[in-house]
């Protein structure tokens, strides 16, 4: 497969996954806000503020919208604003641009479903969201992203492109889940609430829900919604498909499949970096993480994910032709 094509497929998947996670985040926050008990909490501008930090684009947000942070500003910024490169619209637009270049590789059906989603989304704004109602609106969009995955699943040829597609998707997921967990870091507990209070539990529940992990967590962990339990589940669970470790294990599978058909040693650094990340996650101790700083730990995970990304690109896409072998 052409290096450029592999790269485009990989990024198509990354953008789609990123867009989906943005949706999940808004969904959960909208529900969380409704769960807040008092009117004071409900109108607290800080209720929407954590979302602004998720993708690290907060400077742009405050430049455009300032404070206090409103639901409208956050929803507009995260879903519909083309000036935010991580907004759902930007993600779908980028996925579409990439998919257009490789439609012959990913099947016309796949391109069509992304294209139709983009054309649909482009006509929407905050009013559409507000009038439909947050829950219903987001549910519809989530369904549409799931539809794209379903079409990919049934239409994409199982060649190298498929493995680059999955690699991109899982890598993006590992990154995004670490950011979603980090949101809790920014959810400031109002003074009269404390760690372990009803609100704290509700907030952890919402983090789980945004990863569609609430029920699964309850079933497998039988535990309380305590910080350590939830963290352990979202970071290190082997079975839950949106945990960071499960995503990294899935990446490992993809990378193995990609390397299977190749000779030479160009890809060795990528394999090595991925193994390092895997081992790091396996050996992480949640109690220690909390004691030493969750935010810093998550930041470090994002850096490690990026290192795997960079090594992968250097192995298959950005290599120096003079060093490459002739197949």
């Amino acid at each position, binding site marked *: *497969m*052409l*290096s*450029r094509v*592999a790269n485009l497929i990989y990024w198509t998947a990354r953008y789609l996954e990123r867009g989906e996670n943005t949706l999940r985040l808004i969904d959960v926050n909208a529900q969380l806000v409704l769960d807040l008990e008092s009117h004071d909490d409900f109108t607290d501008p800080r209720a929407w503020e954590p979302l602004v930090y998720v993708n690290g684009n907060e400077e742009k947000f405050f430049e455009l919208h300032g404070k206090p942070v409103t639901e409208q500003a956050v929803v507009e910024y995260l879903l519909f604003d083309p000036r935010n490169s991580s907004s759902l619209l930007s993600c779908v637009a980028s996925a579409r*641009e990439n998919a*257009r*270049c490789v*439609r*012959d590789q990913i099947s*016309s059906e796949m*391109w*069509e479903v992304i*294209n*139709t989603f983009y*054309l649909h989304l482009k006509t929407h704004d905050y009013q559409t969201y507000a009038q439909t109602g947050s829950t219903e609106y987001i549910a519809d969009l989530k369904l549409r992203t799931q539809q794209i995955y379903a079409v990919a699943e049934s239409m994409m040829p199982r060649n*190298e492109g498929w493995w*680059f597609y999955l690699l991109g998707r899982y890598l993006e997921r590992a990154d995004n889940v670490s950011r979603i967990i980090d949101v809790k870091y920014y959810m400031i507990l109002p003074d009269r609430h404390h760690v372990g209070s009803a609100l704290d539990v509700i907030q952890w529940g919402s983090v789980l829900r945004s990863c569609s992990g609430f029920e699964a967590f309850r079933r497998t962990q039988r535990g309380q919604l305590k910080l350590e339990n939830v963290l352990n589940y979202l970071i290190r669970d082997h079975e839950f498909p949106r945990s960071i470790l499960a995503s990294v294990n899935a990446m490992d599978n993809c990378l193995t499949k*990609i390397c299977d*058909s*190749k*000779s*030479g040693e*160009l890809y060795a650094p990528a394999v090595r970096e991925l193994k390092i990340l895997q081992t790091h996650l396996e050996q992480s101790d949640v109690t220690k993480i909390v004691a030493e700083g969750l935010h810093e730990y998550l930041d470090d995970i994002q850096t490690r994910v990026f290192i795997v990304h960079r090594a992968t690109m250097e192995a*298959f*896409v950005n290599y120096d*032709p*003079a060093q*490459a*072998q*002739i*197949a």
Partner: protein
Amino acid sequence: MPNFFHDYDLGGLYDEMFAAPGEPRPHYRRLWERYQDMSGFGELLTRQKGANQTFINRGVTFTVYSDKAGTEKIFPFDLVPRIISATEWTRMEAGLTQRMMALDLFLKDIYSEQRILKEGIIPRALVESCAHFRPELVGVQLPRQRHVHINGTDLIRDADGTYRVLEDNLRTPSGVSYVLENRQIMKRVFPNLLRNYHVRPVSGYTSDLLDLLNWLAPAGVESPTVVLLTPGVYNSAYYEHAFLARQMGIEIVEGSDLVVQDHKVFMKRTGGLTRVHVIYRRLDDDFLDPTVFRRDSLLGVPGLFEAYRRGNVALTNPVGTGIADDKAVYYYVPQMIKFYLGEDSLLPNVETYLTSNASERSFVLENLPKLVVKSVNEAGGYGMLIGPHATKKQLKEFADKIVANPRNFIAQPTLAFSRCPTICGREMEGRHVDLRPYILNGESVKIMPGGLTRVALKKGSLVVNSSQGGGSKDTWVLADDGDAPDTAPPIKPEKLSV
């Protein structure tokens, strides 16, 4: 029984469908009858709407450079087909084949012996001043000795129905994907009509093209690697590039995917480099290789021309074909046919005046309001003046341009070229159409039956280009004319004194 043509106005022009009001030509009769079976015009509009939606969903779009509002548009498709009888087509095919052969010989001659210049048939200065003349190519042996592989010749029909060549497109003619897509849509919308009509299929085109590309591979290569080189996704014809690559099962590559090592071309893949033998390039000569042509080109491949010159890679179309796109060179095609083939041209040109020729220039300047003036190197309907529709200011501007640079223009009479019924709002109206057949020059000359019919959708407009409000129609070439009498006007060979 609905009659969609009750108020249809022939406008005193040659109409593709009607010989006279209410009197369809024999090869259109079944279509006319089919329309009468419909419940009403609404049925046709519903089908049209369905067809449009299909194009949008399939992303069959092109890009308009200057339009900021929406860079991406569908090429409007009109559901009324343009039908060509078997007899008409046979004659046209002969004319196009003849023209292709002469153009190939002309290009070969220009880049080797230059007999046609030495014998003074075409002025040397004219050819050497062509923007697309490539002195770098003189003396280079091209694969299979072919100097042009694909031509999209634009034809129009004049007031008495004679097909005439308006221009040749020997660089990278586009539009063939619309021909293939349009047919797919028509099969969906009118399956029975197509079957009953014995319409010749167009789907063999991509196989013929792939055969041609494989045939051009350097000698001794058993299973050549063929790729399509595109300027990229923002090119107006990108959709077509991807479509053709997909249909042929070849890689679509950008310049950055290719590298040259040891004067051989490779593509950069995830597992290393793979040798490339044939490149169907949809990129003009200028951008091919920044070390030889335009230095600022980021689209091309450094070293590609040298690999080509050494015969390690084939390019389609070959380098240097652009001289025959020059509209001043077009003027001489009938002479080329005479010179190389010893024949009179079967398909006449449109009457043309060379402004570089002093006597013709003064005629053009005196009659500017009646003429169409074209820049010799522009395509897509750009850089032209339509005298009858121009303001005084525009006429003056063009007159000045002609005087300043007479070599850069040609003029032609404003042609009343033929019209075809077209869905306009809630009724049928006549709109001007042209025809671009696609001619392949491989082991033998192969022409896809029909080609792209473009239609000027604006009332009265003569500009059919997609970038300027044109649309397209499916073009039906009939396998046989049945009992229908031959009503096609005979092709009148053009007598020349050379």
